[in-house]
């Protein structure tokens, strides 16, 4: 379907497509098998300027919007959402700086991220603060002209690989949600270490670790935005980043349709290619329907967000749920169409099925997204 993209958007698609076909697809199985971080591939993505897409022009980027980043992530996701996740998490790591950071922080951190010299990460989740972000226990206390951070973040994408981390910590416990603030922590700051790499079911090319703060001292000016505005910035960050996760789902969905249809065309049983059997055609048709419907919603949601409306949470959550539930279902279907071959590691769909599961869990579980949508509906209908 033609979504009437701009010339620049077509360029982003072409570049991400070429990187995916030439660099990601030939290497994804090995990276997955070895749990290996895709440093070389990320370097070639930086060379192609993809890291600059979400960064404003005045800081060396392209000032791209939500749809631009969605288009890039959809292509990368078609190859490997482990690599796509590493890329997306870097963008997620700098969103708080873009949204709320001081001019000094922007000047210091955005240009090297745009160039791909620095890699970023976003530290929100903790052992007791997942879906309920208010359970955060990491603290930041001002001591003289330095903040002192203590606590442990869990399951942080790009942990141990990133140069800069935006970290949410409680600065005033008595204020609840208004007592959280965001800080920039650099790799190498005293008192900051990363835990060992977690062993995961899928997205194994991406790195996931704990971030451990033990009397970690950072300069006062690393506070992002005003003290106590951390949650608001986190919510804005996630509202703009969720369509990116949805886009990774579109990528998996497309790859699954491509793999399953191509296989069904060449697999012969009972003297015919299995694609000629209606049982298979219906599975493929349903996969294609769900994929295209999800794509239409994700693109529309991204365009809506690019207009910077006040009501972005609902559409952002809607597109995340739809596209990632689709990715899970379609990847299970692709394995089914390919039968025993689909289950084997020689074929890419078993990895896609393992990978797809995380999309329903991270950046807010799909249940939490439904809560958001439900609460918004409740508000809307109270007014009527």
């Amino acid at each position, binding site marked *: 379907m033609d979504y009437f993209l701009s010339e*620049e958007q077509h360029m982003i698609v072409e570049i991400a497509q070429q990187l995916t076909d*030439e660099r990601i697809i030939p290497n994804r199985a090995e990276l997955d098998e070895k749990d290996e971080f895709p440093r070389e591939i990320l370097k070639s993505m930086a060379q192609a*300027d993809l890291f600059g897409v979400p960064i404003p022009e005045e800081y060396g980027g392209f000032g791209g919007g939500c749809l631009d980043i969605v288009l890039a992530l959809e292509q990368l996701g078609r190859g490997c959402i482990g690599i796509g996740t590493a890329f997306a998490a870097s963008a997620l790591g700098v969103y708080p700086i873009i949204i709320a950071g001081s001019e000094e922080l922007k000047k210091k951190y955005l240009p090297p991220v745009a160039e791909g010299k620095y890699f970023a990460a976003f530290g929100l989740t903790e052992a007791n603060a997942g879906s309920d972000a208010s359970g955060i226990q990491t603290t930041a206390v001002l001591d003289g002209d330095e903040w002192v951070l203590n606590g442990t973040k869990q399951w942080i994408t790009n942990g141990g690989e990133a140069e800069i981390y935006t970290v949410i910590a409680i600065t005033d416990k008595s204020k609840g949600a208004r007592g959280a603030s965001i800080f920039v922590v650099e790799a190498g700051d005293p008192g900051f270490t990363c835990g060992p790499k977690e062993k995961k079911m899928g997205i194994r090319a991406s790195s996931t670790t704990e971030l451990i703060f033990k009397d970690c001292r950072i300069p006062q000016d690393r506070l992002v935005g005003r003290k106590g505005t951390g949650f608001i910035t986190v919510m804005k960050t996630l509202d703009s980043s969720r369509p990116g996760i949805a886009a990774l789902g579109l990528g998996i969905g497309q790859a699954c349709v491509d793999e399953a249809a191509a296989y069904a065309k060449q697999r012969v049983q009972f003297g015919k290619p299995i694609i000629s059997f209606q049982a298979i055609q219906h599975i493929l048709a349903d996969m294609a329907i769900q994929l295209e419907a999800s794509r239409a919603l994700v693109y529309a949601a991204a365009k809506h967000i690019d207009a910077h409306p006040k009501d972005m949470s609902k559409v952002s959550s809607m597109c995340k749920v739809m596209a990632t539930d689709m990715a899970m279902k379609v990847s299970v279907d692709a394995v089914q169409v390919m039968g025993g071959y689909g289950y084997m590691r020689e074929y890419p769909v078993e990895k896609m099925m393992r990978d797809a599961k995380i999309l329903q869990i991270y950046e807010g579980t799909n249940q939490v997204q439904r809560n958001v949508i439900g609460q918004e509906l409740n508000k809307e209908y109270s007014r009527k």
Partner: protein
Amino acid sequence: MNIIVCIKQVPDAKDVRLDPETNTLAREGVQSIMNPYDQHALEEAVSLREQLGGKVTVLTMGPPQAEEILKQAISCGADKGVLVSDRAFAGADTWATSYTLAKAVEKIGDFDLILCGKQAIDGDTAQVGPGLAIRLDIPFVTCIQNIREASESELVMERMMDDGYDVVAVSCPVLLTVVKDLNTPRVPSLKGKMKAKKAEFTVLSAEDIGADAACIGLAGSPTQVVDVFPPKPRGGRAILNGSMEEQIEQLVEKLAVYL
């Protein structure tokens, strides 16, 4: 370091078919690409410029649509593109082509290094690079697989041989032809693509480069293509089955036909 990279637009080899009627290349509907070896030459030029400064000029001879590969080169980091294009160049063989390119290089002037792909995948002659160096009266080294050291005055590099490689040091200006082991060509960048969209190229005619009409195009080409044909298909194969005696019997039967 100022570098000129010679590039050629060729039909995508993945796509090539012969017209069964005429036995010539069927060009309709066949995608054109930048000769793959030339992509490695361009990558090396861009990375040398990133190390040493200077500029990278891409040069191609061809019809107006060859601007497509100049655009591609700009999106991959080249600074400037020159298209040598004139109806009078049509039908040029490697002799006439190297003459024409030499005249164009003289017109561009000021270079320390010329990089070419080892050969183009359409003609596969590997003659134009060395021919161009001879016309310009500069040294050339072919089949470069690695550049170890580079400065504006000298290059130290590895020349691929059938068995291992030679280490060659040569002073600039020099022409090199390169093989695919040299590097991995980069994917075009977003900035590059935007620059390519707006890029305008110098177009040089036979007159612009002061070419002698007798030395260009068909008139300047000693090679004349008499016939183009696909090689005859090889004979079929048969695998004989059964016991040794049965197989011998079958074999004798098959050979008997030729008696």
